[in-house]
């Protein structure tokens, strides 16, 4: 691969200390995306597809899988616009995809309801 490389284990600032580069590599987002309420991806990286499962329920599959499944804490971090937010869906196991739900904020009368929503999310973790 004809790309320039800088190999370094540590970045050191003149006064503010040093940082091990493994934190930079491991701390970078490995997946990011923006999609419509029909799971159509408009901005993305390391995503192979979006699936519109049912209202407010989406699955995003990755090109480069993660090392760990979501159940083992390998991946996470989501965000939604307006009055919707996302949470892990129940069957959230595979390391090669993530299922998310758009839900209304929980009210006093019961649990949150699924709702169609645009989605923006980044995911961190170690890749396979």
């Amino acid at each position, binding site marked *: 691969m*004809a790309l320039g490389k800088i190999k370094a284990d540590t970045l050191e600032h003149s006064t503010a200390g040093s940082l091990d580069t493994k934190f930079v590599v491991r701390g970078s987002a490995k997946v990011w995306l923006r999609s419509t309420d029909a799971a159509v991806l408009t901005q993305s990286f390391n995503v192979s597809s979006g699936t*519109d499962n049912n209202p407010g329920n989406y699955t995003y599959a990755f090109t480069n*899988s993660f090392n760990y499944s979501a159940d083992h804490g390998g991946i996470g971090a989501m965000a939604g616009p307006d009055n919707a937010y996302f949470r892990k869906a129940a069957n959230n196991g595979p390391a090669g995809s993530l299922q998310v739900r758009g839900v209304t904020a929980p009210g006093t009368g019961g649990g949150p309801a699924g709702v169609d929503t645009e989605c923006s999310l980044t995911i961190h973790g170690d890749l396979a």
Partner: protein
Amino acid sequence: METPQFQGTHLFDRLCWAKENLEPHQSDYRVVYEDSVDECAKILVPDPNWMACALQGGILPPVQVYWELAKDEAQPDFVKHTRGHLLHNTKPVEAMTEEQALEYLIMKDCPQHVWRDWDSGNKPKLVICRKEQLPATREWRNAWKISEELATDETVAA
């Protein structure tokens, strides 16, 4: 643009190269499938950057690599992938047509029980269609199903 020799290069690095060098391709096709008779149809949408990689060739690993990783994950004692090297070291697939890319994506991202016997019932469990063929609005989204009028014959597959 010619794809660099990527066999042995980490897949993530290849995706970085693709992001810098390839134009995303937003497909007009959708994969509609029914995972369960009790649930509404699911709509799979290809990612534009992934599709660009598929059309370019020399970037993506063979789909069988994902099956191998899925087998590992299916083990009851699975905690962490130990065969991720298959993604990076297996010879990448050549350039695909959009149709071939959709078939690859179905075999990667749809449940195997759906695509392996998609035509075993009275109607297909899986259909590739143009986005215009989906309902125009998301009203009654919970009730979307593959039409009973479709038959599992060669006409549908074509």
